[in-house]
């Protein structure tokens, strides 16, 4: 394969060399899909990634050339370079890169034939349209449009395309008119090569909620352990004292130890017991006096 490179025109050779340099200078090399991203947005994404990651667009054949020439396990990225690919270089860790790329995605209008990434919902409420043929066009694709107060209004919230379904031309047109942008457009990471391992997106999705829950759980466990095992720390000493005091008070009440601090609790307990017996006695025919009933 390497031999074949000799016959590449100079501009192609330069491209391959640039990719090779990128691979050599960064700890992480990724392949991203750039399908359907308008040029203006590519500029925007590049700006957002500046200082963190570099995007190098190139033909798939040249990417393959470069990977082959570098050789080793990075060659495995080859099979992910399909469609409109680009290389991405960074020294961040693959999980961070994935998050970063997710954050650069923006909402765009749907083109006919695209697949809905999630349920596409038209919310109810007024539109900016004056009455006209628009009402019929919307109704035709199942959007409950009506005229109210001289304006076109959507009568109720409606799901027009389910997740995974193809978006038809008529619906795409209607969505554009309603300014609904259902498509997530941005760099889609196909695979990332990092320290001899190829990470695919399914490995890189992070459930931050789960981490948060685990942090809360760990903090609770630490709190519980500290209090239950009586390991005083500034954070838990109050709870430990509380536990000891409650135990002492409970023992005092249970054993009827007549001490000032808990005598009111003992009185309360006696009072409740008396009421319990009084009600039982009443149920069996003993008439309670007014004071008891109160």
């Amino acid at each position: 394969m390497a031999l074949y490179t000799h016959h590449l025109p100079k501009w192609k050779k330069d491209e391959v060399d640039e990719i090779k340099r990128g691979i050599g200078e960064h700890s992480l090399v990724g392949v991203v899909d750039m399908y359907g991203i308008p040029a203006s947005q590519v500029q925007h994404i590049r700006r957002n990634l500046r200082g963190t990651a570099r995007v190098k667009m190139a033909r798939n054949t040249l990417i393959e050339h470069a990977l082959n020439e570098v050789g080793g396990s990075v060659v495995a990225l080859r099979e992910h370079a399909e469609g409109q690919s680009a290389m991405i270089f960074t020294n961040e860790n693959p999980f961070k890169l994935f998050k970063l790329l997710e954050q650069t995605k923006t909402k765009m209008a749907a083109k006919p034939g695209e697949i809905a990434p999630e349920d596409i919902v038209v919310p109810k409420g007024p539109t900016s349209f004056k009455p006209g043929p628009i009402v019929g066009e919307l109704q035709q694709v199942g959007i409950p449009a009506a005229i109210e107060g001289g304006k076109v209004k959507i009568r109720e919230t409606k799901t027009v395309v389910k997740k995974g379904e193809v978006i038809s031309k008529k619906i795409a047109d209607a969505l554009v008119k309603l300014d609904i942008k259902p498509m997530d457009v941005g760099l889609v990471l196909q695979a990332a090569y990092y320290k001899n391992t190829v990470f695919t997106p399914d490995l890189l999705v992070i459930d931050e909620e789960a981490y948060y829950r685990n942090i809360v759980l760990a903090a609770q466990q630490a709190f519980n352990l500290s209090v239950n095992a009586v390991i005083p720390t500034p954070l838990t000493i109050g709870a430990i004292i509380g536990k000891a005091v409650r135990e002492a008070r409970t023992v005092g009440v249970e054993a009827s130890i007549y001490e000032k601090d808990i005598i009111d609790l003992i009185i309360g307990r006696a009072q409740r017991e008396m009421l319990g017996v009084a009600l039982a006695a009443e149920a069996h025919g003993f008439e309670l006096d007014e004071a008891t009933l109160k």
Partner: protein
Amino acid sequence: MEYIYAALLLHNAGKDVTEENVTAVLKAAGVAVEDARVKALVAALEDVNIDEAISKAAVAPAAAAPAAAAAAPAA
């Protein structure tokens, strides 16, 4: 309530809740004893499991106290 307390006192001390005993306790406390009430109490408690009534009061105070139960939904 004095009558009930007298009964509880006797029960807790392991004594029988009889008319004589209740009357003796109440008198010792300086209460002017009504014989009829003592009779009624002793008769009523004959069919009551006092320990159960006490433990119910301790475990589920809400159930034991009508006033408390009524207040609960508002709390």
